[in-house]
């Protein structure tokens, strides 16, 4: 690649933020990020964190101004808050051991329409603590479904999706 010296929007940044976010869900957040660079792209509304393999990162500098996107879009930063994306959930789904709830197919169906659901926690597999926000929602096949806010309502749980995989269809793109 022809490497031009230019100020590049695609620069390393956000690793600590992302690793600390992930440590709530996975045993070893550095392990799930191994081999990947965290790249921060700033724009008017905030920033995006991208995950790219090191070999890809090395090419970014020279292409900078033309890059539309690279690697996985892992999170957005808005006013200092980290908002995880669907692809981050998918990336770590097999490593999640905390702050998750597993839902049966019929409830996944509701959630993937972007709807909130109220469930009885009894009978559901989950590991929830007060510090879990957002919670990773998984399907029974172990796959990631949504990042959601979970509130206790008497003896039930209200699960409000923040972003769910149904978005891939609803976005229409």
């Amino acid at each position, binding site marked *: *690649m*022809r490497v031009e010296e230019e100020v590049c929007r695609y620069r390393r940044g956000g690793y600590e933020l992302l690793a600390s976010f992930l440590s709530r869900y996975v045993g070893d957040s550095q392990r799930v990020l191994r081999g*990947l660079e965290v790249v921060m792209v700033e724009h008017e509304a905030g920033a995006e964190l991208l*995950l*790219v*393999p090191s*070999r*890809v990162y*090395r*090419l*970014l500098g020279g*292409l900078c101004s*033309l*890059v*539309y*996107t*690279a*690697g*996985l*879009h892992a999170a957005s930063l808005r006013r200092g808050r980290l908002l995880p*994306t*669907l*692809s981050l959930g*998918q*990336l770590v789904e097999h490593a999640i051991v905390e702050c998750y709830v597993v839902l049966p*197919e019929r409830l*996944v*169906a509701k959630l*993937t329409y972007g709807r909130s659901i109220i469930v009885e926690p009894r009978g559901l597999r989950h590991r929830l603590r007060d510090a879990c926000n957002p919670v990773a929602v998984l*399907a029974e*096949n172990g*796959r*990631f*479904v949504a990042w959601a806010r979970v509130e206790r309502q008497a003896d039930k749980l209200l699960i409000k999706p923040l972003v769910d*995989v*149904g978005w*891939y*269809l609803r*976005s229409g*793109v």
Partner: protein
Amino acid sequence: MKAMTPFGFAMADRRCLDEKGVKLFSRRLEERHYRLAERYKVHPFMAARYEELLGPVGARELLELQPGDILRAIRVNTLRTNVDALREMLEEKGFALRGYWIPYTLIVEEEPIPIGATHEYMQGLYYVQGAGSQVPVYITDPKPLQRAVDLCAAPGGKTSQIAQHQRDTTPIIAVDISPRRLQALKNNMNRLGVRSVIALKLDARLAPSVLGESRFDYVLLDAPCTGEGLLPLEKGRRSERRPEDLVDRLCLQIELLEAAARLAACNATIVYTTCSIAPEENEYVVSRVLERHPELEPVEPLVKPPVYRPGVTGFNGVEFDERVSRCIRLYPHETRTEGFTVCVLRKRCAGIGGEGMSS
């Protein structure tokens, strides 16, 4: 003086057409072409072309096809699951599936809900992709560590298929001119969990000056085309197909393939493909570029589909480079897929050492 076709469209401003090109579009129409056109609601010029290409019986078979005759297919995302596991999940939900000659392809025989609306789809376990569209990458099998560029990449069907072949280990530069389609590519890469793609918003004709010459060992050009291979799927719009569309597309295609040739490194594989069965957009385009690039050699693909036709070496009295017979043609009425043409070119080295790859 303007050269006119029998249909009155001006050729003089289509500077990309050489003498052979002009001849390709000057066709004598017979009564039977008008009858065929009338019966199947297509332009008489197009009817004459189909008849020449496929013979009278083949042309009718093609034009008789209904959307339901074309196989529904998915490509299992082997980066996230495997064929057996996905098949079991979908069959449990009432889908009837069968295997195909491409090992990671499943044919959908029955779908209780649309195949593009399942949770497994949303979870990135597969991509809905016509069986014909899966052929160009499969039969050229890009290897891990081959530096790849996909010149007309969005929405990323074939980009993610290349990543699958390379086990997502090697950077793929995905170029497209349309921001809207690049957004779809971004969503698809995220859904499918493909990490190694850098998407560039760029006119691919400028790619060699931006990315450098002789840099890539796998160059895919899935060129914008008239989509003639999708004819069976578009009953209503057939009559809108015009010869002018072919001229428009092939001028751009020639320029794009020139760019692909420049990007290719020594010994690189260049895959030129369209979802069109038009010789004007395929063998003619390749022949034109071969004239100016003696370093390019059409080659047979690594794998051949069980049903295909070789590239055509002449059309409407115009002779193409005879090596284009190594191209692969998929006709919808024979393969039950969308129509596709794939031409594989190898770039030979100039002398010892040639143009090497460096990072």
